[in-house]
C-alpha cells in the first residue's frame, strides 16, 4: 500500500510536469466537444438548387417560390438549359436540378397529370435521399394547394381514414446536438484513457527506466495500479469537464442521475485503461503503441453507434459490437443523459462493461512481464 502511494506520487508529478500532455488532456476535449457537435449537423438545409423552367407559367413560378420559401433550399441557378444546370452540379455549385417541362401548367389542368424532373446529386447517398424526400413532400404540398384551388372536398371523410399521430419522446424539439454531445464525450474519455496509458508505459520502455523498475522488488499489481489510478482520476475529471461544457455551451442537463453517469464512467475507464495497458505490453516503441491505440479506437468508434446506428448493421457486425466497450458506453450515456435511465435499466450494460474491465486488466497483469 505504501509502495503504491510512492508510485502515485511519481506518476502525478510526471503528468503535471509535462505541460503539453496537460494541455492535451484538458484543452483538446473541450475544443472538440464544442466544435464536433456543431460540425456534425446532418440536418438537410442549404441545399443548392438549379431551376430549369421551360414553362414560365404562374404555377411553375409558384412552385419554385414554395420550394425556396421552405427554408431548406437555396436558388443558385435559374437557367433554361438542363445542360447548364448539370454543369453547375458537376462544379458542386448546386445539389438538385428541377426541370419543369414546357406546358406544365396547361398539362396539369387539362390532362389531370403533369410530369416534373428532379435530378439529385447523389454522391452522398444519404443527403441525396433525404433532399429528394423533402423536395417530394414540398411538391406534394403544392399539389394539394393546386387541388384545393380546383376541387372542393366534402367535410366528412367519405371513406375510412387512418389518423397517424407521431410523438417524439425525450427530445421533442428533435435537437441533434442532444444526441451527439454525449456520444462525443464518450470518444474523448476513451481517447484520454487508452492513448495516454499506452504511451505512458511504452515511454518507460523506450527510455529504459522500466528496467530499473523491474529489478526492484515492486509487486506487479502495484506497478500496474500505479499506472492506472492517475489516468482513471484524469478520465473522471475529463468527464466532469465534458458534462460542464455540454451544460454551458449546449444547455444539456442530464435527465438521469450524475451518480449513475460517474459510476458507469468509473467502470468503463477501468476497462479502457486495462486495454491501454494491454496494448503497451505488446508494443516496444511509442510509435507502435500509438498506431495500435489509433487503430483500436478507430474501429471502436466506427462500430460504436456514434454516427450510424447499430440497428442497421448486418448480423456479423452486430455481434462485433457486443465486444465493443465504447458501444456500451455511448448507449449508456445517451440512455442516462437523454432518457434518465437508472441503474436497473442499464444493468446489462454494467454487467458487460464489468466483464471487460476484469478481462482486460486480468490479461494486462498476466502479460506484463517483469522479465526480459
Amino acid at each position, binding site marked *: 500500500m505504501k509502495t503504491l502511494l510512492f508510485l502515485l506520487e511519481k506518476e502525478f508529478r510526471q503528468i503535471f510536469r509535462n505541460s503539453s500532455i496537460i494541455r*492535451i488532456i484538458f484543452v483538446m476535449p473541450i475544443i*472538440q466537444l464544442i466544435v464536433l457537435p*456543431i*460540425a*456534425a*449537423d446532418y*440536418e438537410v438545409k*442549404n441545399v443548392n438548387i438549379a431551376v430549369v423552367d421551360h414553362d414560365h407559367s404562374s404555377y411553375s413560378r409558384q412552385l419554385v417560390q414554395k420550394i425556396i420559401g421552405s427554408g431548406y433550399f437555396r436558388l443558385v441557378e435559374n437557367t433554361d438549359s438542363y445542360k447548364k444546370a448539370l454543369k453547375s452540379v*458537376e462544379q*458542386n455549385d448546386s445539389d438538385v436540378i428541377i426541370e419543369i417541362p414546357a406546358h406544365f401548367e396547361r398539362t396539369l389542368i387539362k390532362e389531370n*397529370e*403533369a*410530369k*416534373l*424532373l*428532379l435530378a*439529385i446529386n*447523389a*454522391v*452522398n*447517398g*444519404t443527403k*441525396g*435521399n433525404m433532399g429528394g424526400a423533402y*423536395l*417530394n413532400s414540398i411538391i406534394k404540398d403544392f*399539389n394539394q394547394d393546386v387541388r384545393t384551388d*380546383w376541387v372542393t372536398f366534402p367535410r366528412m*371523410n*367519405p*371513406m*375510412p381514414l*387512418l*389518423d*397517424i*399521430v*407521431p410523438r*417524439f*419522446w*425525450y427530445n421533442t424539439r*428533435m435537437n*441533434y446536438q442532444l*444526441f451527439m454531445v454525449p456520444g462525443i464525450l464518450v470518444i474523448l474519455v476513451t481517447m484520454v484513457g487508452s492513448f495516454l496509458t499506452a504511451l505512458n508505459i511504452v515511454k518507460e520502455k523506450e527510455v529504459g527506466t522500466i528496467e530499473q523498475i523491474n529489478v526492484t522488488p515492486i509487486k506487479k499489481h502495484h506497478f500496474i495500479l500505479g499506472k492506472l489510478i492517475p489516468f482513471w482520476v484524469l478520465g473522471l475529471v475529463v468527464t466532469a469537464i465534458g458534462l460542464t461544457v455540454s451544460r454551458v455551451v449546449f444547455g444539456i442537463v442530464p435527465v438521469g442521475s450524475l451518480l449513475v453517469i460517474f459510476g458507469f464512467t468509473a467502470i468503463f475507464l477501468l476497462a479502457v485503461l486495462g486495454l491501454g495497458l494491454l496494448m503497451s505490453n505488446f*508494443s516496444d516503441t511509442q510509435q*507502435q503503441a500509438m498506431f495500435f491505440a489509433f487503430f483500436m479506437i478507430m*474501429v471502436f468508434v*466506427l462500430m460504436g453507434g456514434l454516427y*450510424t*446506428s447499430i*440497428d*442497421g448493421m*448486418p448480423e456479423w*457486425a452486430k455481434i462485433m459490437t457486443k465486444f465493443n466497450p465504447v458501444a456500451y458506453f455511448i*448507449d449508456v450515456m*445517451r*440512455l442516462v443523459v437523454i*432518457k434518465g*435511465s437508472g441503474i436497473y*435499466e442499464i444493468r*446489462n450494460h454494467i454487467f458487460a462493461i464489468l466483464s471487460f474491465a476484469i478481462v482486460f486488466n486480468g490479461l494486462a497483469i498476466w502479460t506484463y512481464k517483469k522479465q526480459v
Partner: protein
Amino acid sequence: MKLFLAFITKEFKHILRDTRTLIILFGMPIVQIILFGFALTNEVKDSRIGILDYSKDQASQHIIQELDASRYFDVEANFSSPQQIDQAFKEGRIRLAVVFPAHFRHSLFQQNTASIQLIADASDPNTATTVVNYASSILKSYQDEVLGEQTLPYTIQPEIRMLYNPQLKGAYNFVPGVMAMILLLISAMMTSIAIVREKELGTMEVLLVSPVPPILVIVTKAIPYVLLSFINVSTILILSVNLLDVPIQGSLLLLLGESMLFIFAALALGLFISTITNSQQVAMLASLMVLLLPTLIFSGFMFPIENMPKPMQFISNLIPSKWYFFIVRDVMIKGLGFKSVLKESLILVAMTIGFVLIALKNYKTRLE
C-alpha cells in the same frame, strides 16, 4: 547515386522490420473499407418496436402482422401500459412504440377515422424520423389495402433521377474520404514521426554530416512512404471496384496522378510538422489533432460542410484533404476530366509549395 540508394535501403529496412506497424498500415484501409462498405449504414432495418394494443381486434392484429413482416421492423414486445413503453425506451430495448386505441376497428369503419399513435425514441432524431416515416407508409398501405387505391385529380408526378449514384450507395461518398484519410496518415504522420525519431535519437546529425546534401536526406526518408501510400491507394481502389462495386468513372491515370499530388502535399505537411517538433509524442499528437481530426471534420466526408457556421466553412478551405476529397469525388465518382478539378489541383500545388518553403526556412535556421 549509390549513396542515395543506400539511404533509401536503410529507410525501407527500418519500416519493414517493424512488422506490427506495417500490419496496421496495410490493414487499416482494408478494415476501413469493409466497415464503411458493409457495417456502417444509415439504413433502418429490423428496428425493434413495441406494441400497446388496447383493442386487440382484427384490424390492429392485421397491422401488427404487417409491421412485423416488413424488413424495417421486428416486434419485440407487447405492452399493457404506457409506463412499460417508457421502461422499454429507458432500457434501450425498442425504437418505436405503436399504440392502438380501444375500439380501433370499430371507429375506423364506423366513424371512418381512427388514430394510431407512433411514439418514437427521439434521443436519436434522425432514426426517429426515419422510423416514423417507414411505419406511416406501412400504415398507409394498409389503408390503401382496405379502401382500394384512390386516384386523385390534378397530380404532379415528379420523376426522380439520382445522378452519379442511382443506388444511393454510401460507398460513393466514403471511398474518397477513406483515401484522403489514409494517405494523410501515412504520408504526413509517418514521415514526421520518422524524422523526429531520428532527431530524438541523435542519428539525424550523423546523416546530416554525411556527404549527401541535407535535402536528399529528407527526400530519401520520404520515398518509402510514397511507395507505401501508393500501395494503399491501389488497395483501396481495387477493393472499392471489386468488393464494393464502386466503378472508377473517370480516368484512372488522372486519379493516380492527383493522388500523387496529394501524397506530395501530405509529405510536405509532414516535413513541416517535423521541423517544428522535437519529440515523437508531440509529433504524433500534433499529427492527430492537426491532421486527422480536421480531415474527418472538415473534408466533408463525414459532416456536410455547407451546414457549418461560416467561420468553420472558412477553416475547411485550409485543409488539404478537403480539396483532395473533392478531386477524387469528381474524377472517380462523377467521371469528370482534369479541367473540372483544375482549381482544386492548383490549390494543392500551392499548399505543397507553401509547406516546403516554410519547412526549408525552419530547417535552415535550425542548422545554422
